[in-house]
């Protein structure tokens, strides 16, 4: 390979080398596909590559864009690669989170689960490498090759436990929606090349498509990348595929793969088209907020912990797409400073989501291994048995609930700030919609607190709901190390927003012309527009809160006795308390079911009060299935059943068809 010919090594070459290294590691696993020991060596090596990629990407953020033509691809159609600040940002995300998940996978791997470990290791590293290549691809051909490799490798990872029919079904649904999305993306590139036949991104960037074609391209990109990201109504694969996949794969898919779709939306709308129209922003804002609300409402009624997290991913992607919509809105009206603020919030939230969602998915993986239970109704009290996992999951829960002082709050704070500036928009009707949109964001944030209390409380607190939970063991050293790395990331990103803002500045400068002044009031403060308008300092916030808590604790301990007596739980004096009297996951979802009743399709039966053997059943399903997907499936079936009219099963009839076809062709050619 001539990858390293260009001495000194540029960041782009280093990023490509990292992807190649992942591919080599994956291929290495094929030498002994059934060996767990080999895979245990390859995963940590993959983690090192991830860290190296993160370091390279961090440097590349502040460099000028670099491009090169690879000696790969078809004759006359070589692969173009390019590394600019936007790519570098997402590569940084891939490197940091990919490294964490690789470390975790080292400890998570067990012999005899699903596909052979070597094959899983191959798919895993191909998946990582293809995500890296998607981010550096600079022509539609290379992009689609990498994109499809990513879809296929993740499909094989999702179905690695392929002996269960439901997992195969989930995998099928995933690949189906992924390809609908891919077709849409392909058409989008077709619209962008505007008949020139040049599919390199460089050419698309220099081209000025008419606003009609640009709008077509944007809508196609939103649908195509939206299918991958899981925006409503293309989300249905997400709650099926995430629980089916092994936990590290769920983590990687949710944390990084969904972000490649966000990258695609940003790349097309801000870079390739370059001049967003304001109403694209309105569409993205509406779709994003609908996804966010839909996702969090459904997350609240889930009884499977991984499905709950999958729906929460839909919510977070919704918030990110809403942020993108706001960016386009401001950009369309030429309000660069506010566009920079909204873009900062969008990217910050994407990064945060990668950290806390992978953390939580990995925590559920440890719980799953320790208890072999995924149903919330059969867990509980694990904080005593698995303290390391529990405390890391608590960090993740606080972060994802958007509570200060962790990272989820910073990005939601920035997003709400961006909303507060919208009343300056020149469009009266859009102005009126903004309070409603801000209210939707606020409701989503509050509901995510509800969902996380449910998640953490039911899994880790209370009494164990099953006897076998007493045998649960804490996560091993590899798994714990990964959890600590990701939890630490959540804390650092939360407490030092200045770091992240300065990393985002080159991107916002490049695409909106403005940057958020990160160092204006020092590293510890965020003051996006002006300090007297809004400022927030998580470190100072945490310091004062800690001092107050500590003073309260010390004062109570000094002034009063520290006597503690252990006794059975009080529970209003009720003596026959057992674990089944705690709130179940269904119980915790019930208020949300009542409040948002029209959203769900609820089926079930409740026993009469005099029933001697009461049975209770209730399911809250997604209406989208019945409104959209089943009608389409039925229509497809009807059309295909017409095809069977042609199939007569007699050779003479088929010969007739050939003859008729020949005649028709002759007619045309003549």
């Amino acid at each position: 390979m001539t990858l390293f010919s260009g001495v000194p090594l540029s960041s782009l070459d280093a990023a490509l080398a990292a992807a190649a290294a992942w591919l080599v590691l994956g291929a290495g696993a094929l030498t002994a596909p059934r060996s767990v020991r080999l895979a245990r060596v390859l995963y940590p090596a993959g983690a090192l590559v991830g860290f190296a990629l993160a370091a390279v990407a961090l440097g590349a953020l502040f460099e000028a864009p670099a491009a090169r033509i690879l000696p790969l691809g078809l004759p006359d159609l070589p692969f173009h690669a390019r590394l600019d600040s936007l790519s570098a940002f997402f590569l940084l995300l891939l490197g940091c989170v990919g490294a964490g998940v690789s470390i975790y996978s080292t400890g998570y791997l067990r012999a005899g689960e699903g596909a052979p470990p070597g094959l899983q290791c191959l798919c895993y590293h191909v998946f990582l490498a293809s995500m890296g290549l998607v981010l550096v691809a600079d022509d539609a051909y290379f992009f689609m090759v990498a994109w499809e490799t990513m879809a296929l490798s993740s499909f094989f990872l999702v179905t690695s436990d392929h002996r269960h029919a439901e997992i195969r079904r989930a995998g099928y649904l995933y690949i189906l929606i992924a390809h609908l999305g891919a077709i849409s993306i392909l058409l989008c590139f077709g619209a962008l090349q505007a008949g020139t036949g040049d599919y390199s991104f460089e050419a698309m960037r220099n081209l000025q498509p008419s606003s009609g074609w640009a709008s077509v391209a944007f809508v196609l990109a939103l649908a195509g990348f939206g299918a991958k990201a899981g925006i409503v109504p293309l989300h249905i694969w997400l709650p099926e595929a995430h629980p089916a996949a092994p936990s590290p794969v769920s983590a990687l898919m949710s944390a990084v793969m969904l972000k490649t779709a966000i990258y695609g939306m940003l790349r097309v709308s801000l870079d390739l088209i370059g001049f967003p129209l304001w109403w694209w922003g309105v569409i993205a804002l509406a779709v994003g907020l609908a996804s966010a609300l839909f996702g969090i409402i459904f997350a609240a009624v889930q009884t499977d912990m991984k499905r709950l997290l999958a729906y929460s991913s839909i919510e977070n992607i919704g918030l990110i797409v809403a942020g993108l919509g706001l960016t386009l809105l401001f950009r369309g009206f030429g309000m660069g400073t506010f566009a920079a603020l909204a873009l900062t919030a969008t990217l910050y939230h994407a990064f945060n989501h990668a950290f806390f969602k992978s953390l939580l998915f990995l925590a559920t993986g440890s719980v799953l291994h320790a208890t072999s239970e995924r149903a919330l109704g059969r867990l509980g009290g694990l904080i005593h048995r698995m303290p390391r996992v529990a405390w890391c999951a608590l960090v993740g829960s606080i972060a994802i609930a958007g509570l200060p002082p962790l990272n989820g709050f910073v990005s939601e704070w920035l997003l709400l700030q961006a909303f507060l500036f919208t009343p300056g928009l020149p469009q009266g009707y859009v102005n009126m919609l903004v309070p409603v949109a801000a209210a939707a964001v606020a409701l989503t944030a509050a509901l995510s607190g509800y969902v996380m209390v449910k998640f953490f409380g039911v899994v880790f607190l209370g009494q164990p709901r099953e006897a076998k939970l007493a045998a649960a063991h804490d996560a091993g050293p590899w798994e714990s190390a990964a959890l600590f790395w990701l939890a630490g990331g959540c804390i650092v990103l939360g407490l030092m927003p200045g770091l992240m803002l300065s990393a985002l500045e080159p991107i916002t400068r490049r695409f909106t012309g403005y940057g958020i002044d990160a160092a204006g009031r020092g590293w510890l403060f965020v003051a996006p527009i002006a300090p007297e308008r809004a400022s927030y300092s998580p470190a100072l916030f945490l310091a004062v809160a800690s001092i107050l808590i500590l003073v309260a604790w010390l004062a109570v301990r000094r002034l009063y006795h520290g006597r503690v007596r252990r006794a059975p739980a009080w529970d209003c004096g009720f003596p026959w308390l057992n674990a089944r009297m705690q709130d179940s996951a269904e119980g915790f979802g019930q208020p949300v079911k009542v409040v948002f009743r029209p959203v769900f399709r609820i089926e079930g039966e409740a026993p009469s009060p005099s029933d001697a053997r009461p049975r209770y059943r209730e399911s809250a399903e997604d209406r989208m299935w019945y409104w959209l997907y089943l009608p389409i499936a039925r229509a497809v079936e009807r059309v295909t059943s017409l095809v069977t009219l042609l199939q007569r099963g007699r050779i003479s009839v088929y010969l007739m068809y050939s003859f008729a076809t020949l005649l028709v062709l002759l007619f045309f050619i003549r």
Partner: protein
Amino acid sequence: MSASGIVAQLTELAIAVLLAPLLTGWVNQCRAWLQNRTAPGLLQPYRTLAKLFEKEVVLAHNASSLFRAAPYFIFGCLALAAAIVPTLGTDLPLNAAADAIALVGLLALARFFIALAGMDVGTAFGSLGSRREMLVGFLAEPALLMVLFTASLISHSTSLSTMVETLAHRELVIYPSMAFAGVAFTMVSLAENARIPVDNPATHLELTMIHEAMVLEYSGRHLAMIEWAASLKLFVYSCIGLALFFPFGVAEGGDWLGLVLAAPALVAKLAVGGAALALIEMVSAKMRIFRAPEFLGTAFLLAVLAMLVHVLLEG
């Protein structure tokens, strides 16, 4: 950051922590008078706290360290919230650290932990209370945020000090947006502080209690911290209300005389506010728990309406 700012900050914190139980006692006293009962002394909450601190802690067997840490944590969060809201002066050092959104986040953080603590022991009542508290929370929090947003749209800032300064300097006209926001805020505060139409602080009836169910397993000094934190929460909400709707008498900048005068003004405003709260509680009846979403949904809609009215009429 000035000397007077630091003094104002510390005084404010001290007043909040020390006087919060007094406000609770005052509300209870007013309520008793209105109900034609003999009122407990004004200092009754302090006596209760002293009694609880002296008692030993009875801890359930499977209570985790989260359960033991939560009371201090919640107390710290609410004390910080009290320090953020400008009640005496607007020149507060902590103002740059946390704005109105962070204040809402802080209150949500306290709620998050008290709900988790309620689930920790694993009793029927604890988790029921947590669920209901979070139900009230997820409906009330966005409404509170919208109320604060209305004020911040008026003052073009989410910094609480700037908001108070701007609102205090507007001419005395009733703004329709603030009227809507005021009604919404009152409804939210009643719900968030476990007050009568939504919850009853004086009952231990299983079917109706929310806040009390959640903290049922606490005893001794832990319960004292929780009770104190509950008083602080009422104090914080009262102060938010005063800051948004009656921001008069608050010292601006480094005005020493203003600071000295602000304290009696605050006490007077709180006394009137507490009496009003008791009156509201007197004339309304406790709702069924599933009427609470309607009540809070109304508050939320009013708050959104306040923002819309501001954008349409006053923008």
